[in-house]
């Protein structure tokens, strides 16, 4: 507060520290600072006393120790021999995975619901109001538990998918929803996957330049180029052409299946009959591994799967005797193949750049494909629907905040309704919508710590859960956990501030 008083007549007197507003603020700050420091030192000295009483020390060495527990969902290599630090990293990636998936779905749901709640159709508007109010007014934990219970209790077991069972896969036998999780087709990468990716990236760059060119042309000449169709075409056509071309050429190449202890030209069936066990070496998620597996399955051969890094690794594993059958790209010189491995009469196709493997019903469960665990699905759906309800309200408020005169003025200028929405309404509404939407993303990320309710292994369950229980390092573990969340939210909120200052109305 700006309060001025008369200039002091004499020199400085100690009483001015209390009664003179110019010095008083200093006094208050010094007192507050001393109080803060005293409080902190009290806490720290208590903590030191308590730790020494318990015989514990304060160090982060446990992060380098062997974790000794398994994590059922991981995005990077991890097993029980890995360190606690790596377990924490797996947890962090799982948290980020659910956050990204959740934010994406919540945005879609929220924008749809928010727009539909403004629909002229009474029934649709009311349905959306029921959705929004229902999700906003019931704890998210209850929704997570409810959806998890739905996924585990009300979905069919894998054995119901057998002949005569009452369950069936959906979308042309590609997706199976079971009480053990949702099984979806898994992508396998073949020769030319890198080229395909490069083509896709180049077309993204091309889209960027096309849009810039179109905008510039419009500003300079007034000619309107088809931005939307151009973008769509650039996005799809080059990648599709590359995919087909690669599939027609390298995809049709066949390659031999090599086996140790076989004679030249033996069939796979005979070979399998001559061997006790079959261990197949293959690179995970490569089309060779997929096609080799398909070949084995078609002949009903049981085999073990040995994962290797690359073709050289496969050869090394073959030489070491870890596996006795493998298939190599035709480019590999057969002379480098260790002695004793010969080609069988069966061959496999090299495969398209990307192929999808459908889940199929195996002995007790579905095999192949990707398994999305119920914990992931329940957490994802519940968080997205819950946050989506809040985003819907933000979207509705944002659209309502643009005054009707703006639309009318745009119509008066002869601008089409679709273009009015894109050029007049949305830019103004987004200014209102995006800041609260980002804080909803932040809430979703923080709410993902409710993974504990369904046993999803996020960072709280690994670093803040099992690791703490095993090492007894509560203080260090919780500190790191808190820091992770703090840094995440500071990053998100600084992104929001950046956006806010960019779109702020320029005022005096």
């Amino acid at each position, binding site marked *: *507060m*700006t*309060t001025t008083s008369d200039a002091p007549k004499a020199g400085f007197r100690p009483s001015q520290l*209390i*009664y003179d507003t110019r010095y*008083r*603020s200093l*006094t*208050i*700050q010094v*007192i*507050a*600072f001393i109080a*803060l420091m005293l409080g902190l030192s009290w*806490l720290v000295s*208590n*903590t030191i*006393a*308590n*730790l020494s*009483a318990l015989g514990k020390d304060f160090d982060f060495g446990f992060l380098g120790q062997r974790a000794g527990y398994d994590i059922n969902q991981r995005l990077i290599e991890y097993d029980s021999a890995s360190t606690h630090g790596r377990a924490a990293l797996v947890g962090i990636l799982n948290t980020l995975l659910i956050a990204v998936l959740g934010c994406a779905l919540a945005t879609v749901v929220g924008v749809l619901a928010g727009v539909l709640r403004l*629909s*002229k*159709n*009474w*029934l*649709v508007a009311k*349905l959306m109001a029921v959705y929004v*109010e*229902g999700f*906003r*007014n*019931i*704890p*998210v*934990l*209850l929704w997570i*538990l*409810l959806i998890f*219970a739905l996924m585990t*209790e009300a979905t069919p077991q894998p054995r119901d998918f057998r002949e005569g069972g009452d369950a069936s896969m959906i979308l042309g036998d590609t997706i199976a929803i079971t009480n053990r999780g949702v099984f979806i087709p898994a992508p396998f990468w073949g020769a030319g996957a890198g080229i395909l990716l490069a083509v896709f990236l180049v077309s993204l760059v091309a889209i960027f330049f096309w849009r810039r060119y179109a905008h510039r042309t419009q500003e300079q000449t007034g000619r309107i180029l088809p931005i939307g169709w151009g973008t769509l075409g650039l996005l799809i056509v080059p990648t599709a052409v590359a995919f087909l071309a690669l599939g027609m050429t390298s995809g049709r190449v066949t390659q031999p299946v090599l086996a140790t202890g076989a004679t030249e030209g033996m069939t796979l069936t005979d070979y399998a009959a001559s061997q006790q066990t079959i261990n197949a070496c293959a690179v995970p998620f490569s089309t060779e591994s997929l096609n080799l597996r398909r070949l084995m399955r078609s002949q009903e051969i049981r085999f073990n799967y040995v994962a290797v890094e690359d073709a050289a690794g496969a050869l090394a594993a073959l030489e070491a005797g870890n596996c006795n059958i493998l298939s190599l790209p035709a480019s590999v010189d057969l002379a480098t193949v260790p002695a004793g491995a010969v080609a069988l009469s069966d061959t496999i196709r090299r495969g398209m750049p990307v192929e999808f493997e459908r889940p199929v019903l195996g002995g007790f469960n579905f095999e192949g494909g990707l398994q999305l665990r119920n914990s992931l699905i329940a957490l994802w759906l519940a968080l997205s629907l819950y946050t989506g309800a809040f985003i819907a309200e933000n979207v509705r408020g944002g659209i309502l905040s643009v005054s009707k005169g703006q639309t009318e003025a745009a119509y008066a200028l002869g601008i089409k309704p679709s273009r009015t929405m894109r050029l007049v309404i949305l830019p103004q509404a987004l200014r209102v919508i995006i800041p609260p939407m980002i804080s909803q993303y932040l809430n979703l990320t*923080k*709410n993902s*710590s*409710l993974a*504990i*309710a369904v046993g999803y292994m996020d960072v*709280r369950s690994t670093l*803040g859960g099992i690791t*703490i229980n095993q090492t007894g390092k*509560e*203080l260090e573990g*919780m500190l790191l*956990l*808190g820091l992770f*969340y*703090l840094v*995440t*939210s*500071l990053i998100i909120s600084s992104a929001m501030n950046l956006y806010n200052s960019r779109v702020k109305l320029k005022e005096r």
Partner: protein
Amino acid sequence: MSDTHAQTVSFVRESMIPQSEPPAGNRGAVLWMRENLFSGWFNIITTLISLYVIWWALSHTMPWVIRGIWDASSLTECREIRDATLPEGTSAACWAVLTDRWQQLMFGFYPRELYWRPVLSLIIFLAAIAPVLFPHTPRKALALTAISPFVMFWLLWGGSVWFPVSVALGFVLGWAAWRALAPLAGTLIASIVAAALPIIYWLYTAGPLARELEQAVALSIEYVPSQDFGGFMLSFIIGIAGIILSLPLGILLALGRQSDLFIINKISVGFIEIIRGVPLIVWLFTASLLLNYFLPPGTNFDLMLRVIIMVTLFAAAYIAEVVRGGLAALPKGQYEGADSLGLSYWQSMRLIILPQALKISIPGIVNTFIGLFKDTTLVVFIGLLDPIGLSNAIRASTEWNGIYWELFVFIGLLFFICCFSMSRYSLYLEKKLQRGHN
């Protein structure tokens, strides 16, 4: 009309015909349906899709709800009744779990014969909060509001009446010190003494004083330990205690964040951002795992109290941001007007700024409270028996093993009723507080 005109025209109606209704297709329900449901082909399709969705949802749930069985003592008995009375393959809810266990869901393991105590506290709470929420009630009632927390505490936990009384005395002491010192030594010294004196009193005198008084006049009711608290009662206690305690702290933090004093400002910003950046569940684990490390060796206090402290700190950070919004929304002229009247900082805050800022912030505070009330379900993870914790306990019993949906529906419905009515109240406030300009 002139007479001549009447003769030249062969027919002129001399009386007005009564106003007639619009055609049947253009009024009432038909018009409404045409405008709102069937105004174009696109609208017709969306209406049909919505109708299908509603039918699908209702046809899958309503029979289950309506056929529900209310009178049974276990899930197996429920199923037997269902198989005996209903055709094979039909599903029916087993609401009997609610008739059997509703008291547990509401009160946890609170002694049955003492249920009147939490109910009475709730009534006292509602009576105490009325003067705050509705401006028409007499101002004198605010004095009762100030006493009510101690009465509610005593009713809920029971034990000697002297403990809450001696705690309340601390506040009286602080207030008396302020009143006595402020005219003599100035506000700064007075407020420091008024803050320090009660703390010293609570640390050293309050306990022995309560014990002495207890021995002199034993006034006590049956003591109920915190472990017996549960169900919605627990959610209410944590939520209400959290919001009431966090309000003053939140207002102070908001003022600190707006303050020109560098250190005060940075302390407030740091506190608010750290608390808001970390999820509540991490703070709750901190309360249950770590709080003992930060306190003098040997201190060990109630888990529920620790949770209330954490929830209070958590809510205070959120309320601070809401109040800051209210402070920022006031026109600068209000601050300058207060300064030009020669009011001191606290006078201008108390008399000019806060009454207006808080009024603007009430809807936001209510929304924070709704969020806090929903978040009380998280205490299940540190072992307190909130409704969700109790539903797990009920499911673990032999009679009700395997019952899910009925409990979820009941808990969800109760939360919905509470939160929805609060959000309606905040909407009502928002409408009421809007002054002109539209």
